[in-house]
């Protein structure tokens, strides 16, 4: 028995596909990124080794700073707007019961299964100042002006709204599951004690949801950091660099500005930041799940 379970070849054959995929699709590209990050490779021709030059430039590259700031804003937006809404909706939905509950749950999640490509273009139309849905709604309420939803001051919030809208169902569903997992006996006990819904929500629901909230918050911050596709299609990082994000920026630098080396340097820093943030958040929440 023991021998059977410690057969080196069997173990090797079982983990080999996973290792291969990891090495080929994750490790190798990262190593290549590290290499090109030290060069001035433009994408064509020769690559010259230039040491830490790219990283020095990155230190005072205001666009990259802006990208990180935007990630932070986005994360705050998720946590302060999307998640409270999602928790409340989930709590309300939980009380509903019956067929309607399933119906709403289904409706809320629908935007989530639609491709970002569709979502981004759709919202481009929705935001259009001249014939978009949003300004038309405002007009229906009697507002005459044309709001420019992508003005430098508003653009990042407009992007945030799209992301909140798109990801709302996901967040809601997770909270909803969390609430469903709370032992109903607790609620019964609370109602016998005469607690109103407020007390129940803040004393029972929220505290018991803590692990779920932690997971959701972690995921929100990380997805804010990794944001790319919506921005790439919706604003391209503009106007100016007001909606720039790290992933979009490295893509632009490599494939638009002919700075493949610099793009890779951004990639390396970007990966480091993501790892640090993930590890940091796990430390903060003392999430022992990843051993």
């Amino acid at each position, binding site marked *: 028995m023991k021998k059977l379970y410690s057969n080196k070849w069997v173990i090797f054959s079982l983990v080999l596909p996973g290792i291969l995929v990891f090495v080929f699709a994750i490790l190798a590209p990262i190593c290549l990124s590290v290499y090109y990050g030290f060069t001035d490779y433009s994408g064509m021709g020769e690559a010259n080794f230039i040491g830490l030059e790219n990283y020095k430039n990155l230190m005072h590259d205001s666009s990259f700073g802006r990208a990180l700031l935007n990630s932070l804003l986005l994360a705050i937006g998720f946590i302060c707007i999307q998640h409270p809404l999602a928790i409340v909706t989930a709590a309300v939905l939980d009380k509903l019961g019956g067929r309607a509950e399933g119906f709403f749950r289904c409706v809320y999640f629908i935007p989530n299964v639609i491709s970002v490509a569709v979502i981004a273009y759709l919202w481009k139309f929705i935001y259009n*100042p001249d*014939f978009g849905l949003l300004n038309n709604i405002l007009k229906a309420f009697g507002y005459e002006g044309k709001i*420019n*939803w992508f003005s430098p001051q508003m653009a990042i919030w407009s992007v945030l709204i799209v992301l909140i809208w798109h990801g709302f169902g996901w967040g809601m569903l997770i909270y909803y599951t969390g609430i469903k997992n709370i032992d109903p006996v607790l609620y019964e006990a609370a109602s016998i004690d005469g607690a109103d819904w407020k007390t129940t929500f803040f004393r029972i629901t929220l505290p018991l949801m803590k692990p779920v909230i932690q997971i959701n918050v972690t995921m929100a911050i990380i997805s804010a950091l990794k944001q790319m596709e919506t921005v790439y299609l919706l604003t391209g990082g503009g*106007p*100016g660099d007001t909606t720039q994000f790290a992933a979009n920026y490295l893509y632009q630098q490599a494939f638009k*500005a*002919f700075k493949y080396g610099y793009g890779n340097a951004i990639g390396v820093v970007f990966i480091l930041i993501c790892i640090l943030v993930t590890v940091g958040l796990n430390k903060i929440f003392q999430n022992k799940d990843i051993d």
Partner: protein
Amino acid sequence: MKKKLMASILAAAMAVSMMTGCGDTKDATADAAADTKTESAGATEAADAANAADDSASGEEVTIKLFSNLPDRKNGQGLVEQTLIDEYMLENPNVTIEVEALDEESYKTKFKAYAMDGMPDVVSIWGQPSFLDEVLDAGVLAELNESDYADYSFVSGSLEGFKKDGKLYGLPRNTDIMVFYYNEKMFTDNGWEVPQTYDDLLALADEINAAGIVPVAMDGGDGWVLACYMQDLMVRLAQTPSDKIANAIANGDFSDPLFTEASQLLADTAAAGVFQTGFDSQDYGTAQNLFTNGQAAMFYMGSWETSMALNEDIPEDVRNNIRVFVMPAVEGGSATATDLAAWNGGGYGVSADSEVKDEAIKFLNFMYQPDKLSKYGWEFGVGLSAQDQTSYLTGDETELQLQVMDLLKNATNISGTPINDCGSSSFKTTIETEIQSLANGSETAEDFLAALGEACK
């Protein structure tokens, strides 16, 4: 398979309609071949047989990959390109041409990705430093034999942008002029007049705004149109700004008053509400649609959009009333109305390490035969080619086409490459981002020019 079938039917149908259109007798055999193909669609053998006499059919199967910046294959320049491809494949049944087409911004991005390793065989290119310098340095484009094109009647000087060290690497497709398209009917109905001076334009914009219409639809999401606008202003201010631009880029110093004046004027124009709300985040299609659907009175774009006059997707009362004027005179500027912001930008090149290089060049030469690109371009209302088109006047030209042709005919000065394309591609990325900030008022002209200088270092 089904798609190929569709394509060949379409090709055949197109070829037929075109030939009846121009009534050329020497194409009779090809015509017959096309007919056979329509009837026994899919049976390529029939077409093969009909073309057996054609000596160009060597019999060996060749696939040429064409990478194009013209995604709309049913209108304008894209239709011209597709028509030529279909015609070439009919004449050379052993050749298959596969097209990958993306809009300009995505095209340029993907082109750079391709340039790293292995490009398609025939590619769209731009004869401008920002695009071509690095590409030529890397040697990814094949050299062309200039003397081959002596009879192709290229407009003099139009090949210069495609050369490096005296060697030719590409051929220009268009002559581009930046113009204001305007809706003439809307103008007459409202008693508006074509502005003669820049102040007229600003005053007109106020009037149009008051009528609840967008004055000028501007594709500001792509920074290059704004940069062309600035170029246009500089032409009005200094007549021939190209030396100053070249100097400024070489030295990273944009302190010349010309730049300050032009960028300030652009910022003021935008602030005065000449462009639509949110122009700095709207793309080409959005801006154009504002104009073609009567939401905007004018549309600032290049002469390649002349084909709007023939585009069936555009409502008829707009389509038939599109006219153009050029950037009006700026107070204190030295230029006259016949000094144009114009250049020979887009064209084609062949990949240096293409496996079918000879076939690709053959196809390139086919496209540039004087009675191909130029002629079809003219017939499809595309605007101005880089070759002499005067012999193809048919009398059926749209009003718009004739107007644009007159502009070029009467031109006293041509500006050459616009400012954003005069530097490296990194400079281009910078100016096209910064100019949005300049135009939407989040950056001053000073900061804008300082950022440009920084990008040149």
